[in-house]
């Protein structure tokens, strides 16, 4: 049955070039349905899943597979409740005309927020199926047993019926109340098992279609034309002049423009690439940015919007009488998503419809902004998701979708827009820079008494570049600021009677574009906070692990700290106990932290060359408690990847920019971790099957950042105040 073909017919815009059965690896069996402007009603079981005649199921998951493996884990949950085998169930890519709106695939929410919906929908479907089976087999529901979608009457193996035979390809017409009982974790057969990911074989064979492989019939190839490297947010990029004749030599290539939004279209991709490079444009280049040199001084001098995030006890009194006080100020740089594949999008915009395919983390949110930009009602717009490379947060997918839609509208043709490497690097929404000031006090016995944190960073940007260039003013993230000084990372793991956390928000205008980067400010928070805790342990002549242990009671935090100490074979001693003057020194450090509600701990073993200033992470250990871990194999891979990405961010990554614009435009000007310097990693999941699932995609990074910083102190006796720990910064610190 080729419903895929029907889907495409009814979808209006045919995709050609590649067999669409492979849009997701498991779509060989996944089946879509007649597209209707969504979101479909969340209170109907049929919105969530369909049972097919061949006794397989399609589950319409509202989360994007971003490479993290959530599509496998969510299907594990669904299959568990349905008593299906994982091979019997598949999903399709997000589609505003097909899949439910479960909110965006960010904030580590797939399992934490999406899991319960998938679980209860599957349980309710199973309940409906068993009701049908009871009637068919003439037996009470409590006498029925199910395995692999085959229902039988207990003790009568000849009285059987399959799900497919009961309802195959028909609608349930049953309300999703959320009241159906779900399985007890003791009965799990799939959840909690490290099953292989469903998308791996096709990704290895070369059959898998990423967004970058999709084509539309009759399409043109497009590129945007922008200055190399973004200007100050809000300052836009002003065109002084465009010489359209400069691409005359490229047959069929032409310029599209709306305000300062500029692009080229051509018949072939290479022609589009050449035209974008060849087009002569004069841009206004106002020196409106602080540049790396003046960034932190300018941030600290800004008028800020201040907010006490959390306060308890009497801070002033507690510090006054304290036996030991540590105060530190640290700085963290802008860092970028830098997805390995620059974002791309396909767009077919007509007078009264639009079809956009992009790698959005939230197709419904993308549709909202496209409606505004195109002047179309939301229901006229269909946004489909196709996987690009890992995105690690809000990279340029909305920007590229908007740009493709605008170009299609201006050119009057379907287009495929591929961002070039410098578009993605140079016009990203960066994780913002941060200044953190922390004060921590302990009494003579080593008990934490007081904690105060002040954090400065600017807000997220709320208008994408494409829309801004058409003339829409830049704007801040609305409502309360985006990520603020976070209690989760700042003191929550310890028993501290007196505590105050203050957020100092700076307006984003005049800085660089900013948005959610994987565990964005948390690396800076823990770099500040956990170094201060570590320093107190040192000042008290205590082992960093034992000092923390004595100040903790939360079993979740204790669990991950104990787990990581165990795999790292932590041997208690004071940090920097035997200072060395050797050229190459080694150190080990411990850190705790998270992003959203989860519990992460890490140990770092690093090596520092005191002559060159080069820091190498040799072995990183990570432990994560994410409550009920649906697939520990996938989460171990997530932890390991987070450790490596954190080493990359702590040792190498920093967005460079001068007063005019960003100059980190490729992998040479924005170095990231490579094979030769990559640390070994060890990961452990602290499994708690009876707890609620919480985030796993970005919850060991803060811990790892702190562990690296503390290992640096262990090796050198020097505290770093700013990362990344590049050779020049390290040499300067060692000379202090």
């Amino acid at each position, binding site marked *: 049955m080729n419903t895929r073909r029907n889907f495409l017919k009814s979808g209006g815009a045919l995709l050609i070039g590649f067999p669409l059965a492979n849009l997701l690896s498991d779509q060989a069996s996944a089946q879509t349905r007649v597209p209707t402007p969504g979101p479909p009603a969340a209170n109907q079981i049929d919105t969530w899943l369909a049972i097919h005649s061949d006794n397989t199921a399609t589950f319409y998951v509202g989360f994007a597979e971003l*490479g993290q493996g959530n599509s496998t884990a969510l299907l594990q949950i669904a299959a568990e409740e349905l008593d299906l085998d994982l091979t019997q169930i598949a999903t399709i890519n997000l589609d505003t005309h097909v899949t439910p709106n479960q909110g965006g695939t960010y904030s580590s929410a797939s399992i934490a927020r999406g899991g319960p919906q998938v679980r209860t929908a599957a349980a309710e479907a199973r309940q409906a199926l068993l009701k049908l089976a009871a009637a068919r087999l003439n037996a009470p529901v409590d006498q029925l047993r199910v395995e692999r979608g085959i229902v039988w009457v207990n003790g009568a193996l000849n009285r059987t019926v399959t799900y497919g035979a009961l309802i195959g390809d028909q609608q349930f017409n049953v309300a999703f109340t959320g009241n159906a009982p779900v399985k007890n974790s003791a009965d799990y057969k799939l959840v909690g098992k490290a099953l292989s990911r469903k998308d791996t074989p096709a990704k290895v064979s070369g059959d898998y279609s*990423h967004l970058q492989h999709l084509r539309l019939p009759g399409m043109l190839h497009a590129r945007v034309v922008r200055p190399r490297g973004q200007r100050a947010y809000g300052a836009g990029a002003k065109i002084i002049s465009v010489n359209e004749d400069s691409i005359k030599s490229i047959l069929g290539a032409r310029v599209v423009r709306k305000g300062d939004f500029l692009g080229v279209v051509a018949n072939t991709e*290479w022609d589009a690439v050449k035209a974008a490079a060849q087009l002569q444009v004069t841009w206004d280049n106002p020196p409106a940015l602080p540049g790396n040199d003046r960034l932190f001084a300018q941030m600290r001098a800004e008028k800020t919007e201040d907010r006490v995030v959390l306060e308890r006890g009497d801070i002033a009194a507690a510090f006054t009488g304290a036996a030991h006080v540590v105060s530190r100020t640290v700085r963290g740089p802008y860092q970028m998503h830098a997805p390995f594949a620059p974002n791309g999008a396909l767009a077919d915009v007509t007078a009264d419809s639009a079809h956009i395919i992009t790698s959005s983390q939230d197709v419904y949110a993308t549709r909202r902004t496209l409606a505004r930009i195109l002047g179309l009602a939301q229901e006229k717009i269909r946004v489909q998701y196709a996987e690009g490379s890992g995105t690690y947060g809000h990279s340029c997918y909305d920007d590229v979708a908007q740009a493709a839609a605008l170009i299609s509208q201006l050119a009057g043709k379907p287009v495929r827009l591929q961002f070039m490497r410098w578009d993605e690097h140079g016009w990203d929404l960066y994780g913002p820079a941060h200044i953190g000031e922390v004060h921590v006090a302990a009494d003579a016995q080593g008990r934490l008494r007081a904690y105060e944190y002040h954090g400065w960073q600017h807000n997220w940007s709320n208008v994408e570049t494409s829309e801004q260039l058409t003339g829409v003013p830049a704007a801040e993230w609305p409502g309360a600021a985006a990520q603020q000084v976070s209690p989760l990372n700042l003191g929550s793991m310890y028993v501290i009677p007196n505590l105050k956390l203050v957020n100092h928000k700076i307006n984003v205008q005049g800085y660089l574009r900013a948005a959610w980067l994987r565990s964005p400010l948390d690396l800076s928070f823990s770099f500040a906070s956990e170094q201060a805790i570590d320093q107190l342990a040192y000042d008290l002549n205590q082992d960093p692990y034992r000092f923390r242990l004595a100040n903790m009671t939360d079993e979740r935090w204790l669990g991950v700290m104990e787990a990581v100490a165990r795999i790292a074979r932590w041997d208690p001693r004071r940090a920097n106990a035997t200072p060395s003057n050797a050229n190459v020194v080694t150190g080990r450090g411990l850190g705790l932290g998270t992003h959203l509600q989860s519990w992460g701990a890490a140990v770092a073993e690093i090596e520092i060359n005191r002559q060159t200033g080069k820091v190498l992470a040799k072995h990183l250990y990570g432990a994560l408690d994410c409550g009920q871990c649906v697939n520990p194999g996938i989460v171990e891979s997530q932890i390991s990847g987070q*450790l490596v990405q954190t080493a990359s961010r702590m040792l190498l990554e920093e967005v460079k920019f001068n007063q005019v614009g960003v100059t980190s435009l490729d992998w040479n000007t924005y170095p990231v971790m490579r094979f030769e310097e990559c640390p070994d990693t060890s990961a452990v999941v602290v499994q708690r099957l009876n707890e609620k699932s919480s985030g796993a995609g970005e919850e060991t990074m803060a811990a790892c950042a702190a562990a690296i910083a503390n290992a640096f102190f262990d090796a050198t006796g020097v505290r770093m105040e700013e990362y990344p720990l590049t050779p020049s910064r390290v040499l300067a610190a060692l000379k202090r």
Partner: protein
Amino acid sequence: MPTIRVNNLPRDVVSPGDTPLLYVLMNELQLKGPRFGCGLAQCGACSVLIDGVETRSCVTPLSTVGAKSITTLEGLPQDHPVKAAMIETQALQCGYCFNGMIIKAVELLSTNPQPSEPQIRTAMNGHLCRCGNYPRIIRAIQRAATPATPRATGVALGVAR
């Protein structure tokens, strides 16, 4: 109309000679192994084997290919030891870099069937994985090279010469 040899088949292509091979493979021949990553030969997303040598197709003009033999990811059998090891070790996350990872590992094992870990790291250093899965990829290559897997010495089979 130039003819190039891709995965052991002659293919007629119409792109002008200055077109990077990547766009010919991806757009004209609709292959999905080599893919765009940077267009600057910095990342390895676009890698193919040309006469067995790992080559960045994004900066290789079509006119320079001539009669040489091009092998892409889809030209390597699915039971190829490198591919099998990548699946067995669940070495990937998003998988976008895996075209280059597999192509480069196949080249490495064809010249050095038993590479040490430092040799693997050095050989693979020009291939980036933003998901940070290097440790698992190293393990997968070691697994593909293990003598216990008899096919390991046959990796050159996948390399059209």
